[in-house]
């Protein structure tokens, strides 16, 4: 069964909460993860590794740009399309 955008968003959010926020506080899906200091540039690598492992995908170098990963909403939408493309 195909995973929904919302489910992707929830998984990503809970990973970020558990591994970067720690205090259980809600994070706005639209907020810039780098700009808000939630994750720094090294930390983003952990997120990318999580996505590869969880969703069984590999990222091309050219996909690894801030536009795709700088907020939960961006990751959610990018991953949804990537998984959709892979499935079709």
């Amino acid at each position, binding site marked *: 069964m195909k995973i929904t955008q919302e489910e992707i968003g929830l998984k990503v959010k809970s990973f970020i909460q*558990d*591994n970067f*926020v*720690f*205090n*259980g*506080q809600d994070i706005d899906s639209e907020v*810039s993860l*780098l*700009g*808000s*200091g*939630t*994750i*720094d*540039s*090294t*930390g*983003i*690598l952990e997120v*990318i590794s999580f996505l590869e492992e969880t969703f069984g995908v590999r*990222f091309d*170098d*050219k996909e*690894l*740009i*801030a*536009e795709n*990963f*700088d907020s939960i909403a961006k990751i959610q939408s990018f991953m949804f399309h990537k998984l959709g493309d892979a499935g079709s």
Partner: protein
Amino acid sequence: MCGIAGIIHTDDRHAPPSAELLHEMIGAIRYRGPDEFGIYRDQHAGLVHARLSIIDLLGGQQPMSNEDGSLWIVFNGEIFNYIELRNELRSLGHRFQTQSDTEVIVHAYEAWGNECFLKFNGQWAFALWDAQKRKLILSRDRIGVRPLFVRQAQGKIWFASEVKAIFSDPEVPRSINSQGLDQTFTYWASIAPVSVFDGIEEILPGSVRIYDSDGAHREWLYWQPLYADPREPYQLPIADATEVLREKLMRATELRMLRADVPVGSYLSGGLDSSLVAWMGRQAKEGSFQTFSLRFDDAEFDETVFQQLMASQLDSTHHDIVVSRHDIARVFPEVVWHAERPILRTAPAPLYLLSQRVRQSGIKAVLTGEGADEMLAGYDLFREAKIRQFWSRQPESKIRPRLFERLYPYLGRSPNQTKGMALQFWKQGIEKANLPGFSHGPRWSTTSALKRFFSADIRQSIAAHPAPDVLSSLPKDFGRWDPLGQAQYLEVVTLLSGYLISSQGDRMLMAHSVEGRFPFLDSDVMEFCNGLPADYKLRILDEKHILKRVARGVIPDQIVRRQKQPYRAPDAISFVGKDAPDYIRELLSEKALKESGLFDSAAVSKFYQKCLAKGKNAITSATFSNSDNMALVGILSTQLLDNLFVRENRHSSGDRISFVTDIDRVSNHAQHATQENSL
């Protein structure tokens, strides 16, 4: 260099300050001046002094007074131009009993009053007690090389070089101040007058504070760093300015080498600044010269090759120590005990060990290159700000940010994701290029993000009483300065004063009774550097451009031309290895975190577990992100601070000390012969 402390009673109902308590106070910071101790007491005041004898070894005992005994001083530091000032004062009719710089301060205050402070070229913190008017005058040097803290409550004023001396009075309550924490987790240090302890204020660098007999006080800045207005033409071409800077630095170094009755050595990091200072120190004085370097077990932090190159060029007696992660973890509690504030980096720890080495080799004073990066724009932050400024004029440009590859060549070779994320980081706040604080925005916001670890109590307390914002108390001409000058100002008032020359400077040196001397922080050198046009300091992206011109030909080319390596030490990785000392696990346990109440215990526990997991496989410190490093070191040091100062209050120094100078005006007899003569 010394330690000072004292108590003033502004309420007549109090009995005179207790000799016993004053004894405890100075005992708590005896390492600042283990050579001699002195005490002064009258009905309303008690002053104590611990002396590290460097100038006028025989005559410089303190507390010291003016001719008629109405004015008393305890002084920590050096006035390097004291000989010139003494001559000036003699011509005004003042008579001197000693050869010391201390006595010069007393007479200068008598002669010039509040104008005297600007005449001093030095590093100081002192308390002057006007026994007739019952007035207390506290002052610190321009940049805050020497520390001074004060507390006022219940008709009393306590002051001391270090907070632990004030805490040795059991009457003084001890708790962590949320504003101080808020600032630390923004600027990397609390900013005077805020301190990290409730009820304790830090005297502002470059200021004077005067308490009247009723306890009311006024204070003012006699100096602050002011920078050039780019619209005003600068007269000197860069070649001439280079010569002037060379002369001023040489003079500053000579003063610091020669105005000492003991040998002065030098630190040697392997970088440009300390190499140049050591070279100038070598020129200033004949005879043997000792240099000291830090080496690291971890290759990524090590600069041995350059240190040895410079040491052989100097033909100095060179000493070095090799520091490991384990050493850092082992001494970290001592480091926090001396720093007396949370720190976000472990970099002070190796310097704590280095000063120990200095002391073992019999040296009491060292030159260091501290201040060059602030005065002459050496940090990457200044270069990043310049590129961000340039980028901000065309934020959609893909070409402008490629300048970052000039700063960090590895970016050009990096996969897109590293580059993209780095650029995203620097793009923060780019729309605010014309607002104060633009240069420091990325650093401050990254650091502030760590506040998510604060407990609900601390967050509420900060929300109710936010800490003063550095940007709300800027000098009135701030907006007229070049953007580089603005960035330099912010760097000086936050990181230099609050961290580099305190937590990483004075405190680590004095822990082993060693005095630091900083030619780049000479008042004449600072004034000259601050007046230079921005592009003499940062030419395109060439940092410390004018200083390299000074150094060329005398310092090996490899050192002048090498890419600047910021001084760093292994951070988080030092605390998570399998042989990490037990105190770390204990202080980061949920129980200890709940006890201190400063952090969200569940959040920190999860974070710590993550660090431990990473630590299992970590080979280099690159395993830990910048945020991980700052968070772990910051939380651990705060927990240590709370433990050492709030919970334990380990202040007792053990051994009794005996006072060489003992002026007792309470029982009306002075016991010290030389002081009797001057009364």
